[in-house]
């Protein structure tokens, strides 16, 4: 088990990168604590798999260093780094039984025989595979295979970290939840550092203590699920997390008032912005829809009913804005919106501006 330090790490797939855009992974500086559960969240092609492969050693970064427990491992091979990785598609050795699969990494490392069988038996118990231990692994279901891939990493007691590369992609929906619970349970039981790559916000937010949100090769925010929800550091985070995502409205800001088109909105604090490209961010959960003159008049384009609540797609001075209506609330005839002032975030060039700053 180890802490993982990324020291000015960056990677480009080109041999001679020049501009920022050439980097698949832009410079990142961070330390992952020993025993933490982290998620790397971002859309396809944002560099999260690149980062994961750098940590696992399948890729050597073009710049910077990666350290396990303070020790530089940048140029070490995957097998020398002592990490485990679970891939998108279950990787199992077809011709072997479940037991042999789990023993394989230990045999390769020349662990004594009785030690192997002790650890394998233990692992079979942890993974709930007792009744299938002596079956050929190829006949198992996808989630069982994924458990075996995980188990092959866990049998090595001393793994520095376990990396997951979208491990639930091929799992049936009703099994996803079970497997995720199992992962959490194993994390609590064994306390490994776990890094989980996904593009599914639900998976990331339920699995991790800290979520690293990536966008176009850049880490845009690292924070707890609450922080990501309340104070998205980048409009992308606001948009990507939450369903529906945060409303982002272009506006002009002067002191503590913002104006969207001809509408003025009061803010909780005064903001000092240079005025390059300023935007307001407000989560649909804090946009209240009411009837009459009591608010900013909007036009309603559509209503989506998704069971426990409705999403109202409205239009404010030409900008799309979503609001959430609780169950039982009716859509008013002459609608107007009000924002919860404390929940309004201000963005300059897509980055969050702190109050008074």
């Amino acid at each position, binding site marked *: 088990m180890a802490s993982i330090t990324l020291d000015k790490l960056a990677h480009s797939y080109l041999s001679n990168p020049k501009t920022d855009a050439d980097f698949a992974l832009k410079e990142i500086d961070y330390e992952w604590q020993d025993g933490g559960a982290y998620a790397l969240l971002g859309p396809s092609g944002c560099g999260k798999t690149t980062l994961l492969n750098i940590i*696992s050693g*399948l890729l050597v970064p073009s710049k910077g260093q990666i350290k396990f427990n303070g020790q530089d491992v940048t140029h070490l*091979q*995957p*097998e020398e780094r002592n*990490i*485990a*990785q679970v*891939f*998108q*598609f279950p*990787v199992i*050795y*077809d*011709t*072997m039984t479940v037991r042999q699969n789990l023993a*394989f*990494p230990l045999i*390769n*490392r020349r662990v004594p025989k009785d030690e192997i069988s002790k650890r394998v038996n233990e692992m079979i118990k942890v993974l709930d595979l007792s009744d*299938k231990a002596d*079956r050929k692994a*190829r*006949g*198992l*279901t996808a989630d069982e295979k994924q458990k075996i*891939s995980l188990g*092959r*990493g866990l049998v090595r007691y001393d793994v520095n970290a376990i990396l997951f590369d979208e491990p639930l992609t091929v799992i049936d929906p009703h099994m996803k939840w079970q497997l995720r619970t199992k992962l959490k349970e194993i994390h609590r039981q064994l306390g490994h550092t776990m890094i989980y790559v996904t593009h599914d916000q639900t998976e990331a937010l339920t699995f991790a203590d800290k979520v690293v949100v990536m966008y176009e090769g850049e880490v845009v925010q690292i924070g707890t699920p609450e922080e990501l929800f309340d104070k998205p550091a980048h409009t992308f985070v606001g948009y990507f997390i939450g369903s529906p995502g945060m409303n982002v409205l272009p506006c002009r800001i002067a002191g503590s008032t913002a104006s969207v088109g001809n509408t003025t909105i009061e803010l909780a604090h005064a903001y000092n912005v240079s005025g390059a490209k300023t935007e307001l961010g407000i989560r649909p959960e804090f946009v209240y829809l009411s009837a009459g003159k009591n608010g900013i008049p909007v036009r309603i384009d559509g209503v989506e009913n998704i069971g426990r609540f409705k999403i109202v797609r409205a239009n404010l001075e030409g900008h799309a804005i979503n609001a959430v209506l609780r169950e039982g609330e009716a859509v008013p005839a002459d609608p107007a919106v009000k924002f919860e002032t404390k929940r309004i975030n201000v963005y300059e060039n897509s980055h969050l501006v702190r109050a008074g700053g």
Partner: protein
Amino acid sequence: MDKPYNNRAWFLVIPVFLLVAISAIIPIMTVVNYSVQDTFGNNQFFWAGTEWFEDVLRSERFWDALGRNLMFSAIILIIEIPLGIAIALTMPKKGIWVPVCLVLMALPLLIPWNVVGTIWQIFGRSDIGLLGYTLDNLGMDYNYASDVFDAWATIILMDVWHWTSLVVLLCYAGLVSIPEAYYQAAKIDGASKWAVFRFIQLPKMRGVLIIAFLLRFMDSFMIYTEPFVLTGGGPGNSTTFMSIDLVKQAVGQFDLGPAAAMSLVYQLMVLTVCYVFFTVMSNVGVDKVDGRVED
């Protein structure tokens, strides 16, 4: 609901029926006809029963030819399958050399059988052929027309040259379909190169290897053109495979009865192999999913 009866539909079957009759049923029945009759010329035939079949199955000539066939198939399989796997493993997986390698590999497969035979016939001649000339000048007494070992060696070499590519291409297809994650996982598990081959590559190639094995077995079992062109079955009878023997009997000696009986036995064997081939093929890749417990 009443079933509508309309016999005119039969007219639609007639073209296919005619085609199959002319291409398959009539020729085969002619052979069957010959195999149970005897003739003394004049187009007069007498019933012979199973006499020819008994003759064929008792004749040493038949068993010798069958033995040669099986030996030939065994030797080329033992050489071509491992060699094909080895070459496929060394081929590049991506880059500009992939198409180059693939085309080079496919070239021998595109050459017609009799041309292959002719090429090697000339290649092996000691007066004008590069191979024969070189070997002779190296002091080896190489002559495929008079030496049994040389004749076999040449035919086997020719077949390996002609058909290893097929095994290579099939294995290559199997290899490139293995997802990168397997190799990465093996690396993380600390697997050696041999372990990667034994536990990932070989199991993943299992399907294509079965296909390669059966295709090469069937094809080599029916070999005719190349040895016919190269050695004509000689020296002596040493490279007279079943098909060559059959043609000798039917066309050379005009022994229609025994030839027909032999060809039926031969066909039965090929059919059996085809059946096995088909059965195995349709089971390849079908993973038995057992123990799918929904809980």
